[in-house]
């Protein structure tokens, strides 16, 4: 075990994969540049050579299809987009080719490609550098979608994605890149499709993913001091969702809150609420709730993002309402030391 950031854990995972299997390729805009995609690809080209680790032209659609072809040719490509928003150019290749190839050719061959997309937020990222569209990918049969929260999961899910036989969309939140945690060495894998219970408690079930799991963690710990104890489930994979874990928890707690990094309407939170409303109907003691981004793009001005995002205090308040107990949540906001539009003092812009 060693302590490292989420970004370093990704770099570690990529290095392990490149080292372990000569078929692994790592490419994307800026992959070998001096910033190394926020440090996540730093030095990999020097270490593994420019045949396997390389930059690309701004041709997101073709470069995705080229990854699909390379995967069909036996490679395990890892494509990186510095923002999810840029990947909108490549959805035809992702949906019509990568996701469907195995199915439409009757199981002849799958497409073991991993596509990393980074989700931006705050500090002026604005409408086209901040979209969290996991609901889109999770809607598509044939894709798998992971959203790690901790450095360990960042590495473990990345390795599982790379060595998975099917296409995996790997969504990493920019605000997590500097999060530190213990990360096991070597080829450490976290299975796709299994959630992680971060906190246990019988009063309510909180399901979250990615950055929202961190916010939910603050909320849960804060409420625990007030005697409200939640199961906090970090989803980790948004397709396929670990229903048994969520259902087992809701059967115990009877109360569900889902917190989503994406837009509310048509989001993952709604999917979870809908499914649980059906499968745990008899167990639910209150209406299942969701907290998600408002149905409007993120504006650029810091004055417009302050009240836009879901934070620990909102989650704590929502849990309080869900369990029908008065809870204190305002101090969660008051405790925060850095401006609202950055994840911490380490982030000084621009991306």
């Amino acid at each position, binding site marked *: 075990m060693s302590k490292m950031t989420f970004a370093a854990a990704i770099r570690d995972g990529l290095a392990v994969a490149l080292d372990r299997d000569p078929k692994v*390729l790592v490419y994307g805009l800026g992959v070998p540049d001096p910033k190394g995609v926020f440090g996540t690809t730093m030095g990999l080209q020097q270490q593994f050579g420019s*045949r*396997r680790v390389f930059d*690309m*032209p701004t*041709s997101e*659609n*073709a*470069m*995705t*299809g*080229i*990854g*699909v*072809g*390379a*995967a*069909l*040719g*036996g*490679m395990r*490509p890892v494509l990186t987009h510095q923002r999810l928003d840029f990947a909108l150019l490549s959805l*035809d*290749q992702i949906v*019509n*080719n990568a996701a469907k*190839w*195995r*199915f*439409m*050719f*009757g*199981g*002849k*061959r*799958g497409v073991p490609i991993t596509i990393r997309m980074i989700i931006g937020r705050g500090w002026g990222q604005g409408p086209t550098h901040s979209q969290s569209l996991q609901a889109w990918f999770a809607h598509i*049969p*044939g894709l*798998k979608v992971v959203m790690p929260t901790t450095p360990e999961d960042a590495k473990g899910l990345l390795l599982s994605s790379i060595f*998975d*036989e*099917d296409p995996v969309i790997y969504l990493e939140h920019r605000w997590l890149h500097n999060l530190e945690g213990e990360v096991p060495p070597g080829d450490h894998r976290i299975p796709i499709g299994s959630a992680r219970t971060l906190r246990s408690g019988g009063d309510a079930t909180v399901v979250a993913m990615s950055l929202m799991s961190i916010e939910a963690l603050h909320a849960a710990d804060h409420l625990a001091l007030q005697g409200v104890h939640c199961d906090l489930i970090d989803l980790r994979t948004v397709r396929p969702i670990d229903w048994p874990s969520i259902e087992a928890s809701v059967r115990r707690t009877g109360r569900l809150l889902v917190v989503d990094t994406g837009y509310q309407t048509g989001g993952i939170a709604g999917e979870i609420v809908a499914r649980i409303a059906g499968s745990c109907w008899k167990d639910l003691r209150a209406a299942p709730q969701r907290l998600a981004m408002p149905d409007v793009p993120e504006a650029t001005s810091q004055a417009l993002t302050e009240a836009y995002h879901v934070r620990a205090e909102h989650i704590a308040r929502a849990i309080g309402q869900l369990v029908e107990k008065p809870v204190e949540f305002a101090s969660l906001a008051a405790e925060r030391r850095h401006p609202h539009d950055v994840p911490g003092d380490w982030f000084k812009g621009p991306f």
Partner: protein
Amino acid sequence: MNADLSRRLLRDMIRIRAVEEGIVTRYSQQKMRCPVHLSVGQEGPSVAVGAVLRPTDLAVSGHRAHAHYLAKGGDLPAMIAEIYGKATGCCSGKGGSMHLVDERVGFMGSTAIVGGTVPVGVGLALAKSLGAGDDIVCIFIGDAVLETGVFYESASFAVLRQLPVLFLCENNLYSVYSPLSVRQPEGRSLAGVAAGIGLGTSSGNGNDVAEAYDLIAAAVAKIRSGGGPQFVELATYRWREHCGPLFDNDIGYRTVEEFEDWKARDPIAAFTARLFAVKTIDDKWLAAEGAAIDGEIEAAFRFAEQSPFPEPSERFSDLYAA
């Protein structure tokens, strides 16, 4: 061109035509319940490529892929069964006519989104280029593919990396019912655009299979010797409707004169006459080959008709690796 090769080219064209006509004959039975895009009239380029490529070379294609699949050596009964939606189809019934695959002969897949397999082919070439050997990848495209951004991006990357790719463009003048004039600026040739991207290019008459063969062989030789990706544009013409078994000269998007003109340049008739003239073939050869082909095709349709449908439960299978 030696006699064996000539006979092969002619035979392959006759066979592909006969397969397509076999589909035509039976399509109205509504047992082949999927769109079919036939290549009748434009068999030349396919068989020429088929004769140039090795089994270890790869190919990808689009919606009009029967001829490509067969020319590359694809399994005929499996193709017909696929069109019939049978379990024995090359995609177990999942894909239909617009999705064909036979990896044993390097036919890696055809799909129905115009331009969709172009980057896939380039990616296959990238994978090839990371290994040893001088295999190439042939990407079959129609004239409409030149209109897609993904072609441009993919071809550019192939040029950038000097990948072993052959872009084999069958220019049959139409995209569905749309003539080139509403899609390509006047005076701009497809090969011209390709050259601008940096591809090596050549153009010729796709209905002259010998000419097509020579152009393709030259292009492939260049690719194998590290000359970078090549674009070969072959003029040809589809006789039947864009999709389906009928003729559609009556609906008005092209003239009967144009059709008759191209029909007079039937690649099979022309090459047959030529081989007759130089005595490479005779009536006996033609009859024997024709009979063999007919027998093979009858057997393929019989196989397809007699094959079982996939189990309904298979509608959920093959989505992810087990």
